[in-house]
Every structure is written in structure tokens, then in C-alpha cells.
């Protein structure tokens, strides 16, 4: 078993952070192997930003993500750039706050106004936690409790409540997506 996750958007949306928390949760609380990488270059300052996670039941050989089974895109740019890489049968999750057009993909498209919900919760900066929660709820790769522990290990205490609230919300949305297949929220599908 080898599953690839890609979390892509703009610098400042916290997607690299979210990918590290996902990897940390898997590394410290499951028997699975995990490898996390990120786009690392001048572009990571304000431009596009990307965190990648590979989960496997054996040691990961090639450590980079090429065709993610699960692709979270939180800007139109990220969606336009990475949608074509989605593994056949994979799931593309789009933040419909910013992603307005989704190219045709050989998989499932789910869309949800992630950043808008985060804003309603108090701060758009926790959009990454909603996104992370959705990925976990949808895939079942880690439990909500394990993710919350990883958040508390990595992030400052003053942010725990809001981050955990965002995570929980995302997790529920993710489980709904997994169960019903019914699209939540608006978005344009090609």
C-alpha cells in the first residue's frame, strides 16, 4: 500500500504546516511509514506552496509525490497546476472560496468553501486545519484524536482551541464526503 497526498495553495495558507502535522500524526501514532516533502524554493515565499505526504505499509522508496490519490487545492493556480497529476480514481478536494474552475480529472471532485468557513470561525488562517480535517475524515488514514494530539505538539497553546475546532469541522465534512459522495458546497465541475 502506498498512498500519496498533496496539499497545494499559496504561501501563508499553512499547507506545508498541515502536511507536517499529518505526517507527524502518522509517524508517531500509527504503524505506517511516512515521508513528507515540500516545494522548497524562492516560490515558497508568497508564491505557490505545496506540502506532500506519502503513507505506506513498508519503507517508502522513491520519496516524492508524483500522482497523488488525494489532492487538496486551495488556490485556482494550485488547482490548474496539479489537477492533471491526480492518480486515476483519486479525489480532488477544492477550496471553493478560491477555486472556481476545476479541469476535468480521472477521479472524484469534492468541493467545499474551506477558507470562507475558516473566516466565519474567526480566522482564515485555520483554513489549513479544515483542509487537513477533510483529508483525514475522507480517508480515515488517522483519527481525529491523533491529529489533535499532533496539533498540540506542533502548534502554540494559544491556538489550540480554534485549530481543533477547525480540524473537527473539517473531519466531519470529510466523513460526509466519504459516506455520501454528495458534493458539499458549491463549485464548478468541468
Amino acid at each position: 500500500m502506498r498512498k500519496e497526498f498533496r496539499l497545494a495553495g499559496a504561501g501563508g495558507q499553512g499547507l506545508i504546516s498541515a502536511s507536517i502535522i499529518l505526517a507527524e500524526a502518522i509517524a508517531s501514532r500509527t504503524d505506517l511509514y511516512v515521508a513528507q516533502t515540500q516545494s522548497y524554493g524562492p516560490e515558497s515565499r508568497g508564491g505557490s506552496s505545496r506540502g506532500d505526504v506519502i503513507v505506506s505499509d513498508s519503507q517508502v522508496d522513491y520519496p516524492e509525490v508524483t500522482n497523488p490519490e488525494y489532492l487538496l487545492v486551495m488556490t485556482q493556480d494550485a488547482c490548474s497546476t496539479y489537477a492533471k497529476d491526480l492518480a486515476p480514481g483519486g479525489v480532488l478536494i477544492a477550496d471553493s472560496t478560491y477555486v472556481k474552475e476545476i479541469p476535468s480529472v480521472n477521479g472524484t471532485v469534492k468541493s467545499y468553501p474551506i477558507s470562507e468557513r475558516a473566516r466565519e470561525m474567526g480566522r482564515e488562517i485555520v483554513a489549513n486545519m479544515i483542509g487537513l480535517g477533510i483529508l483525514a475524515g475522507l480517508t480515515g488514514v488517522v483519527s481525529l484524536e491523533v491529529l489533535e494530539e499532533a496539533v498540540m505538539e506542533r502548534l502554540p497553546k494559544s491556538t489550540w482551541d480554534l485549530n481543533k475546532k477547525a480540524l473537527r469541522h473539517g473531519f466531519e465534512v470529510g466523513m460526509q464526503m466519504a459516506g455520501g459522495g454528495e458534493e458539499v458546497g458549491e463549485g464548478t465541475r468541468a
Partner: protein
Amino acid sequence: MEESRSRLYQGNEACVEGAIAAGMRFFAGYPITPSTEIAELCSVRLPQVGGTFIQMEDEIASMAAVCGASLAGLKAMTATSGPGFSLKQENIGFAAEAEIPCVIVNVQRVGPSTGMPTSPAQGDLMQARWGRHGDQEIVVLSPAYVDEVYSLTIEAFNIAEELRTPVILLMDEVVGHLREKVTLPKPGDLVIKDRKKPVPGSRYLPYAPGEGEDGDVPPLAAFGDGFRFHVTGLTHGPDGFPTNSPSVGEPQIKRINSKISSRREKLCKAEELFTEDADILVVSFGSSARSAKKAVKDLRAVGVKVGLLRLITLWPFPEHVIQRIAAGKLKAVIVPEMNLGQLAREVRRCLDGRAPVIGVNRVAGKLIEPADVIRAVQEVK
């Protein structure tokens, strides 16, 4: 040390934790991408364990400070990349000549010159071996996995201490920045080696070979231990003072070379996969070897008789391992590496025409993909 539960570590972080577990208590450096996290973490972790971190004015001074700290009795390390590795060479040569144990980490990035600071490469394979002037053997280790960064950093210190020599840990940007699950061994399960020290009260000749199995590595006193001795980069006699005498100088230069070359088989570590019955062999190291491993597994799954040799020790070069595998019938040897053929050239030298050597090369900062290796193997068939 923390309890031994699994955790996510970045490669550069695992290097620092391995170094501290090995007993490193001094780090001097000048931060440079993609090795910067090593300096950053040392500045946090060393004071916590009673050690010292110094950010020096440049790489030349950092390497000099590492030599000084080691002579004062501490296990010392520096970390760098690209242009910084070039600057450190003179004092690495000094450490080799003056037989100062220390560890130099090079997290390789694209060169030449400033190159691509944030992108991976493996172009310093030959510089690590030949970057200094004059004849000297050097030990170079190359990890491919984050948990291996931890264990090889400890190994680098152990070899440095046992052989009184600089050891280079040759990483690359992929391994340095990659985060993976690591289960740290319990401190009691680690093998930690310390340098031999002279017997108090004895007459101390810091460069005089002694008797017995490891007699070619003289004990090393720490300044402050009460021994008065001289250290120089000039060719020196057993007492450490300069000499121009060929009859004194030649044995000294030969000894600092043979103490490493005579231990080739002991020093050489490698991972082999399906090499017993392979008729095509893939030889690689560092992060490229992970792509090679994936390719070899995929090809085996469809019945191609291909094997992998992943070099963990790069220098001294494991020619005996390559020659043993090549004693079977090899149709070809494929060498994936992020440079223009430095390892392939060395493999070709070892094979001496017994099998064609085909390179798979990338130099502009992108990790070799398994598909690149698979294509090269299929072209042989």
C-alpha cells in the same frame, strides 16, 4: 535523551540528534542552504546538553574552530553545502594531516559555484574524496533515509574517533529536508567510540605509531590534560614538530593514508538487493538510490533480473564489493546519480571492461525518477 518512541524527523534534524547521541559537544558553522537547519538546531540543542555552538565569520574559520575544539578534547562537527564545502577544504586537509577527529556534513546542492541553493545534487562525490591538496585518504558516508542519517552520523563520529581522522557525511538536499518516521534506539543500545588517550605520566609522542592492531592510530591527548605537544599542518615527525626529512616524512604520510585504506573492508557498508542472480546491476547512493530501489523492485516484479547495490560508504571506495558482484555475468551496470557521471567513472574503473557502465544523470536540481532508471534498464534488454 527522550524515550524511544517513533517520531517525525527531518533529515537535518536527525543529523543533529545523531551527533549529540554520539557525544558531539561543539559545533561551529556558517549557515548555508540546504544545511541551515543543522546549524539552527545545534544552536538550540547544544546548550541543552552542556555543549557549545558558535556561528563563525565564515566556513574557513568554522572548520578551524572545529579542529581546535577537537584538539581540546570535544567531539566536534560542522555542516555546510556547495561553496561552503569548497572553503572548508584547506582545514579538512589540516585535520587529515594533523590527525584531528571531526565530522564535516555536506548537504549537497546544485553547483558549480552558487548553483541552485535549494535544489538537490550529488556533484561533490569526487570533491569529498579529492578536494584537498596532497595525498590523503578520507572516509565519506552517504545516507539515503532519515533514520540512516541518524545512525550514520553516529558512525561518522565513531570512525573519526577511532581513526583520528576527519569523516565527511555526504548528504543531499532531498535527504536533508525530507521528513520521515524515525524510531530512535535506546541510548543504552548505541555503540559510541571515543578516541584513545595517552597514559598519564608517560612521555607523549602524538604522532608515533604504537604496537598492536590499532597501533597505526596514535593516542590523542586533549590540550588541558597536562600533555605538552605540538600540532602543525607541516609534515612532522612522531613528536609533532616539522621536518623536511624524507625518511621521517614518508612514513607519516603513508601512515595517515594506510590507516584508512587498510581498513577498507571494515569501513565499507552497502545495501544489496537481488544482487545474487542479477544480470543487470544498478549502483547508486543517497536519494538517487531510493529511486533506483523503486525501479529495481518494479522491474523484478515483471521478471527482469536486475539487482541494486546502494553504496553507504563512498570512500574508501568499495571496489571489492563491486568486483565480487561483477564476478557473476553482468550484461550491464546502470549508475543513476545527480551529477554527470562521477560514480559511473569510478565503477567503470573497478570493472575494468568486464561490463558496460551506463549513466543515468540529472544535474539541474530534480531527483532522478524511478522511470528514468527503468528506461535505462529496458534499453539494455
